[in-house]
């Protein structure tokens, strides 16, 4: 069917979720046998876009053409039949089933008459695919027992098994080390050479430069443009993605660095991270970055008492700190803005008022009895302080845009009197306007004397906001870089390099 100029074309796609416009009139064209990078920051609408292509979501408006024919998928199976396969960012698999089944789920090989599953063939086929992808594990292993990278490979094998004409990869490299990424590049190119067209989603430039011939950029769920990769310069691309010059986006003001608040000494947790050491001081913004799954979030959750560490010590304001629960952590003055605000940060079914006051019920209750008047006043005052756009404090959190939801979560932090704020991906899935507002808020907080740990995978904001940056890889700190001379290359090197961790004074022993 190659006579059509585009294997896949989408025109004016709009997808609306209750309260949010996830896709706003976006366009996309995919040529046969090309690798087309789709770029944009978190929350730009990339993931929704894929789900539209694969038939998980039906768009409210817009048309979709496959080899020139207009199609509309009622159901994921329709997309599969049409030869579209997706490798999702959050690996979607069946931990209790074998790798083979995960690969063939939805299109098992079955005997004609008896409709019996042909295990032997499936296992062999799966084994072959895995070998091609250079995987070392047996197809009969249970999925749950594999590492993220390994599961990533199974997902790709899945796409291969349906010999899909169009393969969509959603941030496949987000969790991979350099070698693993190289491996992935190789595989991807081979897929292309075998005639598949690939949509490669990422917000990492080297992915694009290494693989793609074309790049399309989304921002704030809008279509920004499509360029040949060698046509567009790096800064222009950043502007396209971020919406304005880095400099004007990050209002980083020099806060006066005060005394030390927090010090980690050889912190370790079996299976998650090992011998993590850094310190944080008043007024300082410490960036904590690295690949997804490098152990950043785990470290933060340990500081916040969500989970326990089994090695090393935390020193807080001079004496050793042992927090067993978030409640205690907040009592001593450590606050945490969780990574997933919908699951961890908010009660979506509640009004923003109740959400804001939840951590501070004590402040407006006496002997356990609530005082609604006081509560509402506090909620109102905080909601206005962080500039939430909402009609009243009774507006449901689920009805807010990502940015406003995030502001509500910030407001929750302001209810207690804290010294250390841990912000885990504070701008994830937030539109540019809200972003700059949040950055403003962060640097204000730093000036106000908070010590801030900012976890993020967004290079620009790390570089733009932080005084120092600690880079993690595979559960270890591989570098702590100072503000001057802070470059993407340096960070990426430290976070992806497979050579022995470039230890900054610490020994890479243990665990």
């Amino acid at each position, binding site marked *: 069917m190659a006579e059509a100029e585009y294997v896949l074309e989408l025109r004016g796609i709009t997808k609306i979720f209750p309260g949010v416009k996830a896709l706003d009139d976006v366009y996309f064209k995919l040529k046969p046998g090309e690798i087309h990078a789709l770029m944009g920051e978190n929350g730009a609408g990339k993931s929704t876009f894929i789900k539209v292509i694969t038939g998980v979501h039906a768009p409210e408006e817009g048309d979709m053409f496959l080899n020139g024919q207009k199609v509309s998928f009622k159901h994921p199976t329709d997309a599969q039949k049409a030869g579209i396969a997706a490798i999702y960012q959050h690996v979607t698999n069946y931990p209790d089933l074998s790798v083979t089944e995960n690969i063939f789920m939805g299109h098992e090989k079955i005997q004609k008459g008896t409709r019996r599953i042909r295990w032997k063939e499936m296992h062999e086929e799966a084994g072959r695919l895995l070998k091609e992808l250079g995987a070392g594990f047996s197809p009969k292993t249970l999925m749950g027992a594999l590492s993220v990278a390994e599961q990533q490979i199974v997902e790709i094998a899945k796409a291969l098994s349906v010999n899909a004409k169009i393969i969509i990869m959603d941030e496949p490299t987000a969790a991979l080390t350099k070698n693993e990424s190289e491996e992935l590049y190789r595989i991807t190119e081979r897929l292309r050479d075998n005639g598949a067209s690939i949509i490669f989603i990422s917000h990492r430039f080297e992915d694009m430069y290494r693989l793609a011939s074309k790049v399309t950029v989304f921002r704030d769920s809008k279509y920004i443009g499509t360029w040949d990769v060698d046509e567009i310069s790096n800064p222009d691309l950043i502007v396209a993605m971020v919406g304005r010059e880095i400099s004007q986006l990050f209002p980083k003001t020099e806060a006066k660095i005060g005394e030390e608040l927090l010090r980690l000494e050889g912190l370790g947790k079996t299976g998650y991270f090992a011998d993590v050491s850094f310190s944080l001081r008043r007024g300082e913004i410490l960036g904590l970055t690295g690949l997804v799954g490098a152990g950043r979030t785990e470290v933060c959750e340990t500081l916040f008492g969500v989970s326990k560490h089994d090695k090393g010590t935390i020193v807080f304001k001079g004496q050793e700190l042992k927090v067993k629960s978030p409640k205690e952590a907040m009592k001593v003055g450590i606050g945490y803005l969780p990574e997933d605000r919908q699951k961890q940060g908010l009660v979506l*079914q509640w009004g923003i*008022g*109740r959400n804001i006051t939840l*951590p501070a*019920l004590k402040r407006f209750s006496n002997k*356990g009895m609530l005082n609604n008047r006081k509560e509402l*006043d506090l909620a109102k005052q905080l909601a206005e302080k962080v*500039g939430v*756009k909402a009609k009243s*404090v009774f507006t449901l959190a689920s009805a807010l845009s990502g940015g406003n939801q995030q502001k509500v979560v910030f407001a929750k932090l302001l209810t207690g009197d804290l010294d250390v704020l841990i912000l885990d991906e504070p701008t994830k899935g937030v539109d540019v306007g809200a972003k700059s507002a949040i950055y403003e808020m962060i640097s204000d907080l730093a000036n106000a004397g908070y010590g801030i740990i900012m976890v993020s995978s967004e290079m620009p904001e790390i570089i733009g906001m932080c005084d120092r940056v600690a880079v993690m890889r595979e559960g270890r700190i591989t570098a702590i870089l100072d503000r001057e001379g802070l470059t993407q290359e340096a960070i990426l090197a430290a976070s992806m390099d497979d050579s022995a961790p470039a230890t900054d004074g610490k020994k890479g022993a243990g665990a």
Partner: protein
Amino acid sequence: MEQRLIANKKELTLKGFFLQWEWLLVLLLIGVFVMNSNLSEYFLDSANLRDATMGFLDKAFIVLPMVFIILLGDIDISVASIVALSSVIMADLYNHGVPMELAVIICLAVGTICGWVNGLLIVKYKELSAVIVTLATMIIYRGIAYILLEDQASGKFPSWFKFLGWGYVGGIPFILIAFVFFAVVFWILLHKTTFGRMVYAMGNNATAARFSGIQVDKIKIIVFTLAGLMSAITALFLTSRMGSTRPNIAMGYELEVIAMVVLGGVSTAGGKGRMIGAILAVFLIGFLRYGLGLVNVSAQMLLIIMGVLLIVSVAIPQLKQRFAYARRK
């Protein structure tokens, strides 16, 4: 970012106020009264109605904490066994010469401990659902009751104990007064205290509640312990009404209680529902049963009616969602 004013007063629309599950229950309650008074001339008789409450309020005490449990998205099917165990222990002690007052206190203690054990197991073994844990303890608690009392039925309590289940204060059944008292207490606990607020938070999103510094485990244990305590209170009233106890009392109460809570509009998914709804449901089911009893509807027909009522009452919110969703599509 320009400052915008955010209202902190709720704009009350009349429709919003009246379009609530609870009003529907009120309507139904009225419906039941109309229907019953047509069916039997004995129904609308103050004395009868008054005494009818004595008949169905004993299990209602468990409904109150069960609201909390189901709000948490959990379920406790061991309550009936706790009733049996605490009642049996009380009777046994009394018949071995322990003064009744003390026996009563011990009864309450036993119930509380049983509930606490449930809670503890559930938070310590999160991978086990509350259903399974309480299924096991349900069998165990009743098992202990059997071991203690074997084939005896134990009774012959002092006369004052009979007052709990049969006595009146100023012409009002004591059990009714007691229930009203506890209902008010639990209503305040759920709707007016930080504790209740935390329970709602956990029911809607346990993780977020935890990250907001709520000690989820502690709260869960307290809730299940409360269920134990109230089961013991039910044990007191039930035993008093029966004048004697045996290991197999209160069989199947857990199901009736859960049915009442669900009919009361408390969502089994957790986080949604109010105390008042459950309380209305108690009287709705109670008077419905009583009325049908007055016209001697056969037991099996009652079973069917109750079953259908339960199904319909949970089906409706679901259907509403479906329709709403279909509309959006």
